[in-house]
């Protein structure tokens, strides 16, 4: 076929396809506000998965525990990774109030952040143990166990008395030493280094 003949064929082919093409474009559906996909979640499903605990205590379950009860569970389930008193490791150090003045973590890389010197909310201790601990068997602790562990760790960090009972009412009221140290991000692009 000559080049001219090819060109003619191409033109004919194009003319034949063009109107069809236009019809297809005009037929594209307008996206709906909703696609109607997925299915309604049942209250049971939501209850089974909703483990969130808020700083105001929303989500905390029934149950309670004290430092004495928590100490026994800590020995069995936690000490292997966090040390006999929550200080020795090898994994995260949980206990320690120093430095008590000035929150100098930005100035000194050697400081270890613990529950006592760094965590701003007491409820986070419950929330995190419930989600993720112990590392080798998360989800295996009952609410009374967790309240006991939280009480033990807060007592070891000199935040509550060894006689205090932690439950859904008392835990959110525990004010953490580092509560007011956190500030919102003030970086927003542009030439300034923040």
């Amino acid at each position, binding site marked *: 076929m000559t080049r001219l003949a090819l060109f003619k064929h191409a033109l004919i082919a194009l003319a034949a396809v063009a109107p069809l093409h236009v019809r297809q474009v005009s037929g594209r559906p307008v996206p709906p506000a909703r696609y109607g996909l*997925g299915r309604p*979640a049942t209250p049971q499903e939501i209850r089974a998965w909703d483990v969130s605990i808020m700083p105001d205590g929303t989500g905390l379950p029934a149950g309670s525990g004290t430092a004495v009860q928590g100490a026994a569970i800590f020995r069995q389930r936690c000490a292997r990774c966090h040390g006999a008193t929550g200080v020795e490791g090898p994994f995260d150090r949980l206990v320690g109030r120093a430095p008590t003045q000035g929150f100098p*973590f*930005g100035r000194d890389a050697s400081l270890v952040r613990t529950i006592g010197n760094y*965590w701003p909310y007491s409820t986070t201790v419950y*929330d995190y143990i419930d989600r*993720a601990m112990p590392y080798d068997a998360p989800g295996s602790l009952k609410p009374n166990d967790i309240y006991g562990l939280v009480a033990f760790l807060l007592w070891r960090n000199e935040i509550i008395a060894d006689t205090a009972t932690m439950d859904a009412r008392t835990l959110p009221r525990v004010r953490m030493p580092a509560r007011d140290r*956190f500030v919102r991000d003030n*970086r*927003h692009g542009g030439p300034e280094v923040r």
Partner: protein
Amino acid sequence: MSDQPHRPHDSVTLTRRDLVAGTAAAIGLAVLGRGALAQAAAPPGPSRAPGGPATPLGARAPHERPRRVVGGMNREISLTPLQDLRGIVTPSDLHYERHHAGVPVIDPGAYKLLIHGMVDRPTVFDLQALQRFPAVSRFHFLECSGNGESAYRGMRPDQSPQDVDGLTSTSEWTGVALSTLMREVGVHPRATWFLAEGGDAALMARSIPVEKGRDDAMIAYGQNGEALRPEQGYPARLLLPGWEGNTNVKWIRRIEFADRPFMTRDETSKYTDPLPNGTARIFSFVMDAKSVITFPAYPAKLTDAGWWDIIGLAWSGRGRIAGVDVSTDGGRTWSPAALEQPVLPKCHTRFSLPWKWNGRDALLMSRATDETGYIQPTLAQLRAARGSGTRYHFNHIRAWRVQPDGAVVFGLEG
């Protein structure tokens, strides 16, 4: 390129068996009168015998052995070999990893994403439902906010780009826009945050402002043309372009809308940035602009003086890279590098600068500028703003020292 430039003469018929046997091929050469006794012991070149068959699953050339470096007390991190990569995409099997309780095995048939809280219609989506929504595909980097700490303190000269900054990777991510799912469930106007929670053994969870959900967040199920890798959140993960890696919650199983943040461990105890003034920055989501030279860099060695191509990667969590400057004299003078297309927002961008090395000591640096006008700071600038003890977001200028023998080492103090 063939190492056997002359093919057998047409009139010589070689059987298949001749072709696969090295000695027979050598006889063939002798028949052709090439008298190649020296070549007789060598196997035939790739142009002298048919190669291997097609395969159901490809593999790298045996000479190419890029590897992640695995670390951490629980083997919870691995670093991308930045110095082995070209272009901007990270091969999925080399994407960096950071896990908070290992890589879960999730049956895609049993997978569910629950969206509830401050919504009109609490809804469960299975994987097929997610994939029935209109899909979007975008190229974005992911970077762990702890990336580059060893460039901030404890610098060692024998660190590669992978060792220093390997917790960053770029993929093409495919999924459904979170804004689409938000319309589907009817998020309340008063909802300001949502919790993103993974289905791993840590139920890893982060609070995210709703605006990010409406902006460019997606639930991704595809990576570089295929399903997500297990270590990247299979079968579905949250993707928050430009934000610190851990907020891109993998194996996502639950999203809860609320009118305040949840204050999980990974947004209070971890991933907050202590500052020199006795405070700590919380919810420091965006990864600021950064660049790294990936060649020449340790352990590469320049064999000769003369022309070399300085190459590297630059990215910003706030948009596109506007430019990268390169210095070969420790920051005294800078030259604009070329940016390789495509230059995409919140995505690795490849830069390069031809450089004629004079064989003497040289200190190479790169400095990225993003479209907001943010300029990658020096180490001194970042230390002044953040303090020597801060954690995360170490995006300052890096340096590589080229020594007169051609060896390249990391850091300002060669």
